[in-house]
């Protein structure tokens, strides 16, 4: 019997912040798909950050003497119609995709979480108004809303970020609100209310630590959608402006010459696809490692 008591204590002592981080990391490493996902995402981040060091050429410099080159020599993946190095453009393209996507996702998740917290805390008509607003935003197709916003405000990266925030905050709000609603009726919240604590204290100290896992998973899921959405916008000609190196834009520019320089289209597609698959697998793995099981374990 003593043996089992010891085990129970050991299991329980593995809580707290750092132990739980290592526990989650270990559970991710145990799953092959999740590991692959994280490796892909980290690889993409490294490639984008280190692009200036590893890219063989300037991504935006035209070279009339070397247009539509096949792979070889100074151009490992060939060049496009303006003589720009495809490998360099693809590597730099990750910077735009990742920066815009992560910034907009982070903003959308942050804003959505705060709105969700307020809705769950006040309930009643505040919650009703927020939920109905969210419903109506979600009802508009994402790409359509973004096209309108970009058409009105121009297509700089800050507008894209804003557009993503407008489009995706609603979805985040809905998911996080559900999680927060689950925590609100718990007695420790009632205790805080009875002490006369304010909304800021209750949300930041009592509610958010308990829904952090939901928020993290929501971030990873949304990020993969946003990467695809931002690239779609560029492909349609509403996103990044030429000559910005961007995957969607590259596909749009080079698709008519697919038979001549196939890598000019394929390279950005492969990069985009691997990033999205990586983010999806990572989000999945994260959800499984943090997700429902952990909540059950702690809250019964």
């Amino acid at each position, binding site marked *: 019997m003593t043996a089992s008591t010891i085990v129970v204590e050991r299991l329980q002592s593995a809580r707290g912040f750092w132990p739980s981080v290592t526990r989650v990391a270990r559970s991710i490493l145990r799953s092959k798909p999740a590991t692959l996902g994280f490796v892909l995402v980290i690889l993409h981040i490294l490639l984008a950050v280190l692009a200036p060091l590893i890219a063989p050429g300037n991504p935006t410099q035209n070279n009339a003497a070397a247009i539509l080159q096949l792979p070889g020599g100074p151009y490992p993946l060939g060049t496009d119609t303006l003589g720009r190095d495809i490998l360099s453009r693809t590597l730099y393209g990750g910077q735009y995709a990742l920066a815009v996507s992560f910034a907009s996702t982070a903003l959308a998740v942050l804003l959505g979480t705060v709105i969700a917290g307020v809705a769950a805390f006040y309930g009643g008509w505040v919650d009703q108004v927020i939920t109905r607003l969210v419903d109506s935003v979600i009802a508009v197709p994402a790409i359509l809303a973004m096209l309108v916003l970009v058409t009105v405000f121009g297509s700089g990266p800050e507008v894209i970020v804003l557009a993503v925030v407008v489009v995706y905050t609603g979805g985040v709000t809905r998911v996080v609100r559900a999680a927060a609603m689950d925590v609100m009726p718990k007695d420790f919240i*009632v205790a805080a209310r009875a002490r006369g604590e304010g909304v800021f204290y209750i949300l930041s100290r009592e509610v958010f630590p308990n829904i952090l896992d939901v928020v993290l998973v929501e971030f990873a899921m949304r990020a993969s959608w946003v990467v695809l959405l931002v690239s779609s916008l560029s492909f349609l000609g509403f996103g990044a402006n030429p000559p910005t190196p961007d995957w969607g834009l590259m596909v749009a520019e080079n698709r008519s010459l697919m038979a001549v320089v196939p890598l000019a289209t394929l390279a950005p597609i492969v990069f985009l696809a691997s990033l999205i698959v990586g983010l999806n697998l990572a989000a999945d793995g994260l959800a499984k490692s943090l997700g429902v099981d952990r909540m059950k374990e702690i809250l019964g």
Partner: protein
Amino acid sequence: MSITRNDDLAIDVKDLDIAYMSGKLRVNVLENVSLQLRQGEVLGLVGESGSGKSTMAGVLLASLRTSSFVASGTVHLDGMDVFKLKGRELREFRASHVALVPQNAGAALTPTMRIGEQLEESFRLDATSSATRDARIRRSIELLDLVRLPNSSGALEKYPHQFSGGQQQRIGIAMALAARPKLLVLDEPTTGLDVVTQAAILDTLKRLHQELGMAMVMVSHDLGVIDKMCSRIAVFRRGRVVEEGETSLILREPSHPYTQGLLDSVPRITVPGIPPSLDDAAIDAFEHGATMPPREVSLYERVAPEKTASVLAIRGLTVDYDRKPKPGGAPTVLDFDLDVHAGEIVALVGESGSGKSTIANVVAGLQRRQSGELTLDTTTALAPTVAHRSKAVRRAVQMIFQNADTSLNPRRTVRDAITRPLRLFNVRGLSAEEALAEVGLPSGFTERLPGQLSGGQRQRVGIARAISARPSLVLADEIVSALDVSVQSSILRLMDRLARDNNLGFLFITHDLAVVRSVADRVVVLYLGRIVEEGTVSEIFGPVSHPYTSLLLASVIEVGDDHSETIAPGQDEVPAGPPARGCPFASRCPLVVEICRTTKPPVIEASSTHAIHCHVPVEKLRHSQTTSLRSATRFQQTS
């Protein structure tokens, strides 16, 4: 026991070990369990939470939790080695031989299916009863009649949420009986129910057992229930059976200190005083070869404080959840008066839905009231909501919750939980460690998270959080009902000590009359939001009381009763809401007269402190002999 033929045994468990792997370590959930039960007998599985009794119940349904496995030993049910059965055979065995009545029938019934359909599912394999539509309906009604569900033919078309908790449990039992099982396993079948409902359900189960004669296994933490229902009993502690045998024998003369400790730590409605708590160290010593510890029967009797100042006075409180009054309806709480004095523990008693928690929430400022005056410390009027109350008032009223699991934030340490009120209310000269010491916890607990504490320890932290604000009034809402009896008495003693030492007034909300008897000074009995009786604890448990109080007292099931009383049919049916006129209890009252239905009952002053709200003259309110008889037998036992 003289058992020769294996076929006579409904259950034959031999040297069973159930284990799961935690990393590379094997953890035994059940260890070396051997149990036997003859056909037609009733076995009770008793023990504290985590003792393995529910795992054992699962085993008897040939089911294990995922990741658990049979490490050694065999389980024969009705002569069959059930863990050797696979796939189809196992399904057929379960469908025809065993059935489960779960603890919470409300959660076990499918909410989107009509009762009729759900019942039909469970006898689908029975060819004769499921042959035609008529046959199915006939069998369904027959089953519902068997468990005494009122209006059984109308029930088939209804959904689970249209029934009360007790009725849902009856339907759950009917479903379990549908396939004519040879073994019925009941997992805490009455734990979430009110006393009167519990008594009625147990009566039904007892009758069903006599009529149908199947073997039954009943899991319960309540020794009284086990004593009433079971012919045999197995006491579980930490995955082992410490004692097994005939119920009457074991409960009268336990040979293991654990059984003895469990029995002694149960408070009784017949005896005032807080029982001793279980001495785990002594039991461990016994298991390692020490002699049986001497039986500790000393009850601690609380002395009510005299003539102390009032900390809370409620006058004419009315709460209504309906914003617009409905015709025929009435407010949830009507005309409620209450006083709590410093150092006094006042119990607010009633069934679920009686408005006990509503009143606590009004006092805490979490629920608005329609009318009524609340006065704190004789001078300060309490504002309706927390937002309008000053810091000093918020500090003076503190709450302790029923469920220690959800009353502490799982992400924050014990220190965080306790120091927050200290800082918020500027309490000086008290550290988290000192606050923990006050509730009997070591200072090393400050850095722990709630998940690292046991149920009793969490409840102590919850109490420390409330006490550390130095309040004058504490609202304690069912604070011991989720705890094991062994821990319960230590929390009750803590409550008593805090009331005395800190001169605290406790408003103690509970449905458990035995706990009230052991710790309360004064009692207010609430029925559908109206006071029916109030008085000192000895008056409430004395020979004269309101018919509703009498019903509650008669429904309590305790070890050592003769268990002959039965609840009259319909007595457990609580109306959905209070009536617009007359006495709220009129629909269930055995002494009801015409005036009860039309006129609000007058207050009978049985003594200066004892008030009964009833039309019936006081002479007629003397109990039938039973309770006084019971106390007599009980006294013989203790002395």
